[in-house]
């Protein structure tokens, strides 16, 4: 405990109501209405924790009780440093050490070894600063880098630096969706104070803390598919015409846990739930994002077409190969398929072979034109 921390504790104990926080109770007996100094002499201080209570303490006795008490440094950290009662940031930091579940002394112990929580693909480890003042330090990195030494990772200190590092995926491709399940690995923010820890998370996953907090309080303002598409104008005005059934496919295509770490809370409408899985993410998705709306525009146009019947002749293995290629592309596995692994449907040689066999000179599958009219004209 630092001198200024004890001074702050004394001031708080002398004030109305004293201190009552996370199991710690410190007050000056007789309340705050007596003359300055007189009450301390008369009634003394009370210092109480779940394990221990002492009353009638002089200032120096109070100091002796407070010294080394994790309850006191815990109080100081939350009530004098973080403050921000009823704010998303505070609630998020409390979550990082499961403050609602464990008492201050137990947390002090656990923080010594580090307390880990996950947030999307982020692993957040809370520890004590080591200065004996109870202030916390945070390490933020990719969950897949849990076991790697900080020295092996690209070290960052500035929360805004997170913007650049999360802009591209591991292969250097632009990530248009910050909560896409393709956060690159190999970096760490280490030794952050609480402000920078929240700011780093906020930079990597914008607005997720605020929305999670609203959800915790039962105040998440969900805009369902119809709410969001009905308010679109301009080129996105058409998206509200996408059939109900296609919205299921949109959710399955884009919002699955394998694609996006948000937990989809929006449905087709307030009283019409989608069957697609919303996922298990730590934080909610409160409305279809701009990426889904932009893709929805394309799907709306595609769904306007009427199906036609085409006749192709394929061997059973060829049919299965086409299915296998679709799966490989949809699951993002194409880059993993080895050049000589001809047992894989989406292997490059296998697909080139199939194309050579099945396409005509105009790129038509099985020589069947996409538009039947085309065929007649060609003849």
């Amino acid at each position, binding site marked *: 405990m630092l001198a200024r921390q004890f001074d702050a504790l004394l001031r708080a104990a002398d004030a109305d109501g004293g201190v009552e926080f996370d199991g710690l109770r410190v007050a000056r007996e007789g309340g705050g209405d007596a003359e300055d100094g007189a009450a301390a002499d008369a009634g003394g201080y009370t210092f109480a924790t779940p394990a221990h209570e002492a009353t009638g303490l002089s200032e120096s006795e109070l100091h002796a009780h407070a010294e080394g008490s994790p309850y006191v440094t815990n109080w100081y950290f939350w009530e004098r440093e973080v403050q921000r009662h009823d704010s998303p*940031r505070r609630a998020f930091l409390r979550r990082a050490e499961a403050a609602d579940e464990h008492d201050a002394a137990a947390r002090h112990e656990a923080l010594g070894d580090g307390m880990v929580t996950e947030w999307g693909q982020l692993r957040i480890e809370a520890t004590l600063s080591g200065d004996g003042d109870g202030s916390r330090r945070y390490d933020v990195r990719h969950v897949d880098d849990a076991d790697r030494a900080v020295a092996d990772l690209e070290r960052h200190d500035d929360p805004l630096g997170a913007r650049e590092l999360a*802009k591209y995926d591991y292969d250097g491709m632009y990530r*248009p969706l910050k909560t896409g399940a393709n956060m690159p690995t190999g970096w760490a923010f280490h030794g952050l104070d609480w402000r920078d820890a929240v700011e780093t998370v*906020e930079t990597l996953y*914008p607005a997720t803390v*605020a*929305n999670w907090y609203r959800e915790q309080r039962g105040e998440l303002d969900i805009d369902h598919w119809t709410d969001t598409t009905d308010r679109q104008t301009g080129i996105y005005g058409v998206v509200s015409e996408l059939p109900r059934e296609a919205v299921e496919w949109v959710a399955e295509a884009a919002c699955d846990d394998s694609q996006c770490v948000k937990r989809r809370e929006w449905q087709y409408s307030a009283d019409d739930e989608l069957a697609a899985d919303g996922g298990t993410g730590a934080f909610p998705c*409160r409305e279809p994002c*701009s990426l889904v709306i932009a893709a929805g525009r394309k799907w709306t146009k595609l769904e306007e077409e009427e199906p036609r019947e085409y006749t192709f002749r394929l061997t059973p293995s060829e049919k299965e190969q086409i299915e296998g290629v679709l799966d490989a592309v949809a699951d993002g596995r194409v880059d993993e398929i080895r050049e000589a692994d001809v047992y894989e449907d989406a292997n490059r040689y296998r697909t080139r072979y199939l194309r050579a066999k099945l396409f005509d000179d105009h790129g038509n599958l099985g020589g069947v034109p996409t538009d039947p009219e085309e065929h007649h004209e060609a003849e």
Partner: protein
Amino acid sequence: MSQALVIVAHGSHLNPGSSAPTYDHADTIRAAGAFDEVRTGFWKEEPSLREVLRTCEADEVYVVPMFISEGYFTEQVIPRELRLDDWDVADWDSDGLSADVATYTAADTGQTVHYCGPVGTHGSMTDVLVRRAESVTNDPDVGEGFGFAVVGHGTERNENSAKAIEYHAERVRDLDRFDEVQALYMDEEPEVDDVTDYFTVEDVVVVPLFISDGFHTQEDIPEDMGLTDDYRTGYDVPAAVDGHRVWYAGAVGTESLMADVVLERAADAGADVGAAIESVRETTRVAPGADD
């Protein structure tokens, strides 16, 4: 009472560079320390316009659109997405160039939102266009013996966009600094394709009034002006075109002095920015002969 600045911009799902100027100017203003919080929000990126206000703790928020002109985004999309339910474009009382500020309460957060006009129509934007010319020529006194062209979309997309181009061209002309000044357009006359026809002086600085570099400023305009046959191979600055030397500056929005325009917008709306305007003007200055 704490105050926040929120810069809102278009952003992109495809172009990673689209958000860069917005981030850069936000960082410059953050460093100047005038606001308790400086945040950014995007139509196509995150935080979305819909959710950016809830990322601010402040009760008083100044929202500055990183857009070139008044139009669809500033009049419809942004106020709707920010949930400024009482928004009425008439509150800006604008002739298409004069929007300054209108104040509302955001329906979801209860914050007081001072919704400012776009950066592109602010008078100080003219200074940024000129600064861009200084940057691209690396000459803080550039003017004499030089022509100056400001380029925009034409009226096809938005009538006010052409107004903004005219407005700044006129203001640059009034400075009497460049020998010749011309407004040019991508999709109407006078066309940027014919840039050299509009100047008699040999050296011409061309500055597109765009927020960020992308398809138009990096591919279309360089090819249209004949700086290159294929944008992928790049182009020289200056480039020789029809006996002229064309100094193509790229999007004005990437110029660091843009941070000043953002600040001025907020200051005009009543934000207490202290000495930040002077400090930003100073830190973004072009050092004379920086290459020497």
